[in-house]
């Protein structure tokens, strides 16, 4: 894991002091609310429906057990005993007091964390594949790139007052678990013919009101040129992005209105103007950061574990958890374990202080003290010995965290919705809760198989409904909540934007409709087709009819 040096440390401390001063000047009126807002947002502080909300960055989704314990401590001392993990590798505290915020930021700085640029019209927390560094299908670990970008984008003198927010995601694997095609910039680690490491660059993707799949702007940018290249994209966007309408201000609109080819030309022209940095220092800095992410010393063990096989045979619940919640690790004898934060009847992504501490303990005991946060709002233990999975599962079960539903129908992604958010037009959490209850039966969930349900409580799409196999968008129609369903979305390398079905369903009818669709799918699927495969084979119209069958 990356460790701050004296300069990183000084930087975040100065930032806290600076923000403390800004809060004081807001209170004296030296800063008016319009002037203070962007400063507050760039330090992660939102004003929500009932209170302030503080969004803390978990850069590229990587946490140490020590950091997780501090997040628990903050939840207990400054909040109401819980936090909410988001789809973009952040944690949100929903009830902090304004006067406590500088102290919370200091508590974060104590464990090399911050809330810098988790909001506002600036470059946001850079996200990555949650299985970075351990995935079996990886070309290279994307986290050094993310750390390089984190530092480069922090308090950037030129790009802190952009037309709109700007999100960057990086993956190093063949499978895209970082949703790069729906980011303002998406990077995929690649190698050129000479074996040099670099990036395939995507730009102009996004969700929100106007979902768009990014375009590939470059097949290959050498690693050494990455910051210059990103700078060129940012400069074109900062100069030309629309500022007359906030709903048309994201880079996706600029790319779309300008046209991909013209945008590419403008960017390449800008790139050519940026002076070459001295190569040696850039390489030195890259190597310095990479060294922090060199793989841990895995023990040389057999890939198969007799203990695991025996325990799975003896305990069907454990066997189910292993089948559903573990993924292939690149090192023999190790596994990636997903800890679901989607219990039956729970709010997706929420974790209490006690749960966070239990996760930190589990990481210390079983995962080389490391944890990850995924875009699915779950926690990942990246380095678990297969022979210790049973012991881990027992610990998790004690803490109520051994929920075997990763990537199944009850692993629902949802934004906070009208229960917390000022922008929301409908509640998200109760719909998610109802789905986890309706499909609670584990065998049924496994039978349905991998499926993504994603819920947004308004058109801004924080719940990523556009990329759900089943997307649910909560709207307000004549005083009542109405839920519109989209089908066929896909956040991965086979990216697709879900297609809207017909009129919305009322709050008490939407889960019935989904249940009808799921039973139709189970009746129609051939062999072990996934929901998406069946959807593609039968077509939107047929699946949509199933949704409305009883209407």
């Amino acid at each position, binding site marked *: 894991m990356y460790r701050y040096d004296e*300069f990183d440390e000084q*930087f975040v401390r*100065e930032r806290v002091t600076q923000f403390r001063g800004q809060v004081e000047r807001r209170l004296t009126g*030296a800063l008016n609310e319009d002037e203070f807002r962007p400063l507050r947002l760039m330090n992660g502080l939102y004003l929500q429906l009932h209170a302030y909300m503080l969004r803390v960055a978990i850069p590229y989704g990587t946490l140490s057990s020590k950091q997780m314990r501090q997040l628990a401590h903050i939840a207990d001392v400054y909040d109401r005993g819980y936090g909410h993990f988001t789809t973009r590798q952040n944690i949100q505290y929903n009830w902090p007091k304004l006067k406590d915020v500088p102290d919370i930021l200091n508590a974060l700085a104590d464990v090399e964390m911050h809330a810098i640029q988790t909001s506002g019209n600036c470059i946001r927390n850079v996200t990555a594949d949650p299985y970075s560094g351990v995935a079996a299908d990886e070309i290279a670990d994307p986290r050094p790139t993310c750390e390089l970008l984190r530092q480069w984008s922090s*308090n950037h*003198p*030129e790009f802190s007052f952009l037309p709109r927010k700007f999100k960057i995601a990086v993956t190093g694997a063949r499978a895209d678990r970082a949703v790069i095609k729906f980011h303002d910039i998406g990077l995929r680690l690649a190698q050129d013919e000479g074996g040099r490491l670099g990036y395939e660059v995507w730009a102009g993707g996004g969700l929100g009101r106007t979902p768009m799949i990014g375009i590939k702007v470059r097949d290959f940018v050498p690693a050494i040129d990455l910051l210059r290249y990103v700078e060129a994209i940012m400069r074109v966007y900062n100069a030309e992005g629309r500022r007359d309408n906030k709903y048309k201000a994201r880079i996706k609109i600029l790319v779309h209105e300008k046209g991909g080819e013209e945008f590419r030309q403008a960017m390449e022209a800008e790139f050519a103007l940026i002076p070459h940095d001295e190569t040696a220092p850039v390489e030195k800095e890259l190597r310095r950061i990479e060294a922090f992410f060199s793989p841990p010393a895995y023990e040389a063990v057999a890939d198969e574990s007799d203990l695991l096989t025996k325990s799975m045979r003896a305990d069907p619940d454990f066997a189910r958890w292993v089948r559903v919640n573990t993924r292939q690790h690149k090192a023999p004898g190790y596994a990636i374990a997903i800890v679901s934060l989607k219990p039956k009847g729970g709010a997706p992504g929420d974790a209490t202080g006690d749960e966070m501490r239990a996760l930190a303990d589990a990481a210390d005991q079983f995962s080389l003290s490391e944890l990850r946060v995924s875009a699915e709002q779950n926690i990942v233990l990246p380095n678990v010995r297969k022979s210790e999975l049973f012991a881990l599962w027992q610990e998790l079960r004690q803490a109520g965290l051994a929920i075997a539903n990763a990537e199944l129908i009850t692993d629902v992604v949802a934004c906070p919705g009208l229960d917390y958010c000022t922008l929301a037009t409908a509640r998200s959490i109760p719909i998610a809760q109802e789905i986890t209850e309706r499909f609670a039966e584990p065998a049924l969930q496994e039978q349905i198989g991998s499926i993504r349900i994603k819920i947004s409580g308004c058109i801004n799409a924080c719940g990523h409904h556009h990329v759900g196999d089943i997307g649910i968008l909560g709207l307000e129609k004549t005083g009542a909540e109405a839920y519109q369903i989209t089908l066929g979305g896909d956040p991965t390398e086979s990216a697709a934007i879900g297609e809207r079905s017909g009129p919305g369903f009322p709050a008490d009818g939407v889960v019935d409709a989904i249940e009808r669709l799921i039973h139709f799918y189970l009746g129609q699927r051939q062999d072990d087709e996934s929901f998406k495969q069946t959807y593609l084979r039968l077509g939107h119209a047929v699946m949509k009819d199933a949704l409305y069958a009883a209407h």
Partner: protein
Amino acid sequence: MPLIRDGRFVPDDWLRWPPDETAPASSKLIVPFDGLAEAADALAAAGHTLGAEISNDTDPASLVPWFGRLTLISVPFPKAADGRGFSIATRLRRLGYRGELRASGHLIADQYALARSCGFDTVEIPDALAIRQPEAHWLEAEHAMSLAYQRGYGALRNIISARWAAG
């Protein structure tokens, strides 16, 4: 309108076009860039020193032929949240402009260090803002952060360079 240079409120010896009748014959004049080509020769002949006021969507490259004749370029900030001026300044400096760069309009003290890093020398703010954010705020804000990660920008101590120096 108050002018800030090196963290201090200082007198502004530039006049905006059109100058009033009391303006001395050879003064420092900021002329809208749109009308500059037409007026430049006559103004120079009358002994005026020339500055240009550009707009937010002026292509910085179009100023290159003028660099030798312009002692000042003024870049507008219609509101603090509109950061186009930061990219305009960066581009002008990268294109080789060495004269004074001025940010004019709604720029707050907390943006001062960013403006300096992008190449601005002076900031010209409305009177009302100067009352809310007096000189002391600008001086303090300029030094709130002493370190920066980005290379190729001015002012602050560069972390990357400092790291290599240390190790």
